[in-house]
C-alpha cells in the first residue's frame, strides 16, 4: 500500500517541484499539465526507438527543457503574456501528441509496445526523493537558490547584486518543464504504456500542491503524498464497485478544490 501511494505521488511531486521553481521565480506554472503530457508521450516514443527507458526519460526531460527555455525567451523577446503563452503550450501539447500519434503510429488510442516496460514503483520513487532533497538543498543552502528566490520576490535587488532575473526565470521554466516531463514519464512507466489523457489534470493539481506545500520542497512532497493517499482510497472505493468509475475521475479535481479553498481561508483567517 505505501509503495503504491509513494509511486502515485511521484509524478505529482516531480511536477510540483517544477511548479515550486516557477513560483519562486515569480510566475505561475500553468504549463505543467502540457509538459506532463509531452513528457509522457516522448518518454514512450524515445524508449520504443532506443530500447532504453533511461534514454526515453532523458529525451523527454531534454526536449521539455528546451521548449520551456524557448517559451521564456519568447515571452521576454515579444513581451507576450506568459500566462496565455503557457495555456498555448497546454493546448499545443494535446494537439501535437494526438497528431504525431496518428501520423507515426496510426492511432489516437493507447500505445503499447514490448520494448517499453512497466518499471515498477522503485525507480521513480528514488528519483523523486533525490529531486526533493536536491531542490531543498539548492534552495536553502546555495547562492543559486537565494538568487532564484530573489527573482520572484525582488528582481531589482538581484539586478543590483549583478544577477540577471531573466536568466533565472528562463532557467526555472526549463527545469520546471523537465521535471514535469519526468512526471509524465513516470506515468508512462508505471504501466508501460502511453495513455492519451492519462495526465488527467495532474499538472493543475501540482499547482495546487505547490500552494498546499507552503512553497517549500518538503511541503510539496508531503502535500502530494497526502493527495496520493486520498487517491488510493478512491481507488479502493472504485474496487468495491459502489461508485461509478466515471464519477471518480472528477474526484482528484474536487479534492484539490476543497483543499485549496480550505487552506486559503485558514491562511486568510490567520493573517487577520
Amino acid at each position, binding site marked *: 500500500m505505501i509503495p503504491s501511494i509513494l509511486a502515485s505521488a511521484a509524478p505529482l511531486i516531480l511536477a510540483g517541484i517544477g511548479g515550486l521553481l516557477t513560483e519562486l521565480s515569480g510566475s505561475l506554472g500553468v504549463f505543467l499539465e502540457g509538459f506532463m503530457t509531452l513528457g509522457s508521450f516522448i518518454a514512450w516514443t524515445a524508449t520504443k526507438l532506443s530500447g532504453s527507458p533511461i534514454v526515453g526519460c532523458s529525451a523527454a526531460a531534454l526536449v521539455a527543457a528546451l521548449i520551456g527555455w524557448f517559451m521564456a525567451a519568447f515571452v521576454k523577446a515579444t513581451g507576450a*503574456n506568459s500566462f*496565455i503563452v503557457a495555456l*498555448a503550450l497546454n493546448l499545443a501539447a494535446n494537439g501535437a501528441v494526438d497528431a504525431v500519434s496518428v501520423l507515426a503510429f496510426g492511432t489516437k488510442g493507447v500505445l503499447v509496445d514490448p520494448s517499453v516496460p512497466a518499471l515498477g514503483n522503485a525507480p521513480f520513487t528514488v528519483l523523486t526523493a533525490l529531486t526533493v532533497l536536491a531542490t531543498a538543498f539548492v534552495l536553502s543552502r546555495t547562492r543559486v537558490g537565494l538568487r532564484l528566490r530573489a527573482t520572484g520576490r525582488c528582481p531589482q535587488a538581484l539586478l543590483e547584486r549583478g544577477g540577471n532575473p531573466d536568466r533565472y526565470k528562463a532557467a526555472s521554466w526549463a527545469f520546471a518543464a523537465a521535471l514535469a516531463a519526468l512526471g509524465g514519464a513516470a506515468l508512462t512507466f508505471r504501466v508501460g504504456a502511453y495513455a492519451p489523457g492519462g495526465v488527467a489534470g495532474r499538472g493543475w493539481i501540482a499547482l*495546487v500542491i505547490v500552494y498546499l506545500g507552503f512553497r517549500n520542497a518538503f511541503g510539496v512532497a508531503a502535500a502530494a503524498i497526502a493527495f496520493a493517499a486520498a487517491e488510493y482510497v478512491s481507488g479502493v472505493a472504485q474496487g468495491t464497485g459502489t461508485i461509478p468509475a466515471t464519477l471518480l475521475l472528477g474526484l482528484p479535481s474536487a479534492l484539490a478544490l476543497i483543499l485549496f479553498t480550505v487552506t486559503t481561508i485558514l491562511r486568510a483567517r490567520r493573517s487577520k
Partner: protein
Amino acid sequence: MTSERKKTKSFAAFGSVVALGAAAVAAAVLVAATASDPLDALRAFFLTPLGSRWFLGNTLDSAALLTVAALGIVIAFRAGTFNLGGEGQIYAGGLAASVVLLSYPNANGTIVLCAAALAGALTGGILAGTSGLLKARFGVDELISSFLVSSAVGPIADYLISGPLRDSANNLLATARFAPDRLLPRILEPSTLSISVVFALILIAAVALVLDRTALGFRIRVAGSSPKFAAFAGIDPTKYWTPAFSLSGALHGLAGFFAVAGTYGLCHRGFSGGIGWGAIAVALIGRNSPIALIPAALAYAWLETGSETAMLSSELSFETASLVQAAVFLLVTARFSGWNLSRVRAFLRRNR
C-alpha cells in the same frame, strides 16, 4: 492622447491579424502535410466553409456559440477576473437545459425552451459564481478554482449522460432527441444554424451598451483595470467580482443551451469539448471588446470549420482545433499588442 490611443488600437488589431494568420498557416500546413492530395485539401480548407449553405451555416452557428461564451470571458475580464472554467460551465449548462427540455411532456414548447435557457444560464452562473464568491470573500484565486470546478463537473456530466440520462434506444452516448417544438428554429437548412445567432447579436449589443455606455460599465472597467485607483474613487473593486463572474458563467451556460437546443437537438457526451477554449481565443483576438468579437468569432469559426472538414476528407484524421487555438494563444499577446492583461500580470507578480 487620442492619436496615441488610436495607434495602440491599430497595433492591437495588427496583433490579432498576425495571430489569426499564423493559426491559419499552421492549420494549412497540418492539413496539407497529412492529405494525400495537398492542393485539394487546401481548397477544402479555405473554400468549403464559404462554398455551400451547409458549411456556411455551420460556420455561422459555431461563431454564434463562440461569441456568447466569449462575451462571458469579456465580462469577467473587464471586472479584473479571468474565467478558466468555461468548458465545464458550458457542459453543465447544456446538460441542465437538456434535462428541462426532456421533462414536462405536456407543456408548451416555447415556454419549456425559455425555462431551459434559464436553467442553463443559472447552472453556469452558479458554478462560476461560486468561484467569484470565494475570491471576493476569502481571496481564493479564481483562475485555479474555476478550472478545478470545471474539471470536477465534467466527469459528473459524463456519468449522467452515459448513465441515468442516456437514451437506451440510441447507440450514441447521448440523451434522447428533444421534441420538435423544443428546438430553436433553424434558419439555413440543412445547416445547424438556428436563431441562436440572432440572440448572440442581441447579447453583444446589450453587453456592449452596458460595458461601454453606462456608469455601471465604467465603474466595472475602472475597478477591473486599476483596483487602487478605483478604491480612491470610492469604488470597491471586490464588489464586482461575484456578479461579473456569475454573469460570465451564465453566458457560458447559455452557450451550452444554444448548443444543445440549437445545434445538436440532443445532449451528447463531451459536446462542449473545445468551445470554452475557443471562446477564450475569440475574446483574445477581439481584444475584449464586445463588438470586435463578431469579426473575431467569424474568422476563428471559419478556421475551425475549414480545418475540421479538410481533416475529415483525409485518411489520417486528428483534431486540429487545439493546435489552431495554441497558435492563437501563443501569438495574440506578443508585443505588437496593446492589450494590457493587468490582472494576470498582477497575478504573476503577486508572490513577492
